[in-house]
């Protein structure tokens, strides 16, 4: 009896192996921060890609080949991330999806470039696209594009003359902070208070007290999710009255969940947001993501999703698996959401891999982020 079972199982396994071999696959290397401090971002990125891969395979894969996503954990360490990109390429990956932390991307993009492998990254630091690397493409606008889109809001809508900035002092926050200060200078707005905070900082009392004391007309808040939430809670407590304006994270679902009522009224400029449900692709993705993973997709999940789908679209436009041709096609490419629905919004890449697409101004109202304005792509 036992032997019979074993035989049956072995046969089934052999058959499965046979099928897998018969069906050709194309490998994508998903290199992300699955452990370490970057894990929340990396895990969302991965799960967004998982949904995309499933959908792509349901539609017949890329050029008729099934997509196989290899997972590589960088442990949020640039050195490991470099090794992991190398490993993904050694394993035969056609394209790399990741990483998110700019420090990691700065290192590992050199490896992908040396091997002519296209790479979609979730990093937003300005420096990524300033290296003249034709194989690196963003999945969201860099800070040097996203933050200036906010300037108009400060000058026209808020008509602010004196502003404050509260930012997280790591490579992500500093990128945003530097661009913002530069932009304000250009717009003739004075930054009267500048408050840096630490990663994983828990006590925001002195930060908020300082802002309250200086009393600017608006505060630009540039932090990660939990830090944003802790900041909002403290700001509510001390009764910080001026508008709090952020970029991307400040109005994310996770921040609202954590900060509760304290998030009310927060404003942010967002590239793509799961709340922009009037865009059909985003609504569909958001629903599917919540069904699969029992949580709301973040910005990073959408970025991963778009990265994976762009790989499919562009490869099929090229007609073969060729990194060089892929890179040539990406230069100055524009994809319309009408023709390529999973790109979610009309999107263009310039010759450096920077992306642009329409974006939104969002405000938290009654506990939910609500779109209060659209900013056209530049």
């Amino acid at each position, binding site marked *: 009896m036992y032997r019979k079972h074993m035989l049956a199982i072995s046969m089934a396994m052999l058959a499965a192996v046979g099928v897998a071999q018969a069906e050709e696959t194309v490998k994508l290397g998903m290199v992300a921060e*699955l*452990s*370490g401090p970057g894990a929340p971002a990396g895990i969302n990125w991965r799960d967004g890609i998982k949904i995309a891969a499933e959908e792509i395979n349901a539609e017949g894969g890329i050029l008729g080949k099934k997509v196989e996503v290899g*997972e590589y*954990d960088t*442990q*949020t*360490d*640039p*050195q490991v991330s*470099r*090794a992991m990109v*190398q*490993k993904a*390429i*050694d394993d035969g990956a056609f394209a790399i999806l990741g990483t998110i932390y*700019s*420090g990691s991307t*700065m*290192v590992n993009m*050199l490896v992908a470039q040396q091997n002519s492998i296209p790479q979609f990254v979730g990093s937003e*630091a300005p*420096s990524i696209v300033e290296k003249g690397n034709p194989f690196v493409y963003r999945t969201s606008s860099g800070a040097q594009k996203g933050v200036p889109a906010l300037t108009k809001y400060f000058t026209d809508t808020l008509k602010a003359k004196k502003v404050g900035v509260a930012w997280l*002092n*790591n*490579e992500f926050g*500093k990128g945003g902070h530097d661009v913002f200060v530069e932009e304000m200078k250009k717009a003739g707005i004075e930054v009267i208070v500048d408050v840096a905070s630490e990663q994983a900082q828990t006590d925001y009392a002195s930060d908020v007290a300082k802002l309250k004391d200086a009393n600017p007309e608006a505060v630009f808040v540039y932090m990660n999710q939990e830090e944003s939430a802790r900041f909002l809670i403290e700001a509510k407590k001390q009764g910080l009255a001026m508008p709090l304006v952020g970029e991307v994270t400040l109005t994310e679902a996770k921040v609202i969940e954590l900060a509760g009522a304290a998030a009310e009224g927060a404003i942010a400029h967002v590239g793509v947001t799961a709340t922009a449900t009037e865009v059909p692709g985003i609504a569909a993705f958001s629903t599917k993501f919540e069904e699969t993973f029992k949580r709301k997709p973040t910005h990073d999940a959408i970025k991963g999703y778009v990265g994976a789908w762009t790989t499919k679209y562009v490869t099929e436009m090229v007609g073969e698996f060729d990194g060089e041709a892929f890179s040539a096609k990406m230069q100055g490419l524009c994809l319309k959401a009408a023709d390529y629905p999973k790109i979610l919004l009309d999107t263009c890449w310039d010759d450096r891999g920077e992306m642009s697409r329409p974006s939104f101004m969002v405000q938290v109202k009654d506990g939910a982020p609500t779109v209060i304005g659209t900013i056209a792509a530049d």
Partner: protein
Amino acid sequence: MNVRMRTLSILGLVALAIAAPIGQGNYIIYVLTSWLVFAIAAMGLNLTLGYAGQISLAQAAFMAIGAYVTSLLTLAGWHWILAMPLALLACFVVGLLLGYPALRVKGHFLAFVTLAFNTLVFLVLRNEDWLTGGSYGLVGMPRPDFGLFSTMKQLHFYYFTLGVTVLAALAMWGIVRSPWGRAFKALRENPIRAESLGVDTRRITLLAFAIGSAYGGLAGALVAPLVQFIEPGSFGVAHSLRILLMVVVGGSGYFFGPFLGAAVVILLPEVLRFAEGYYLIIYSALVIVMLVFVPSGLIGVWGRLHEKFWPRHEIRADLKEGAGLK
């Protein structure tokens, strides 16, 4: 016989290290190179922990000092071979300055002081961006070029690192075999007796810590050209902890412990790939289990097995001699 066996087995290991990367992909070579680099850092910490009995949680900070000094100098056009000794010297001096107050007090104060120091180094590297590039780090350090032998290629860089590792190991061998090194043995086994015999325990411990720190600096001097990018986040407290566990897992106080421990930590994510995100859980649980049953680390496990199955076996005697310090 004993000496010849030992020499043969060490030569065998070196031959293995030379042959290991041949025919391998770039990724494997890269992993092997990082293994050597971390083995050097762990070797230094082994001197502090295994021989002098002090916990240091700043080995990553010393790697940072080594890496930043080397990077800044090589980016300014210095040759690596000139930049590296300065990096080592910097780490040695900082080690002395840091160890002096901490070792004045009994107890595990060095652990706290080094923990605090590691965080301080991180903050300075991040905030002083006029010098260190801040949180964006430094990019594009050249790999050393020795005229006929350029280390730009991954395989060449591996052999370069291997050469440095062998030299560093020989130097360490000399240190622990010297009369001065033997004082450690006395110190560790019976500090009171050692002191009564005229061994200045504090001075010896301090020197051990400073030399161990310089080894951290050497590892840093190699990391800079290996990764060709450094940033403060790569040298945090978590990395110091990782190096500490390498020493403990391999077997602290054994000469070859750090090599084994570094191999385990670097290769473990590969071996436990099926476990995905769980590998750190499995790893840390295994470390605790190991500390309960065999606190002397994997080399200790090996020794125990031998004692059990092959009592009085030739290699066992050899290994004991090779470790020479336990």
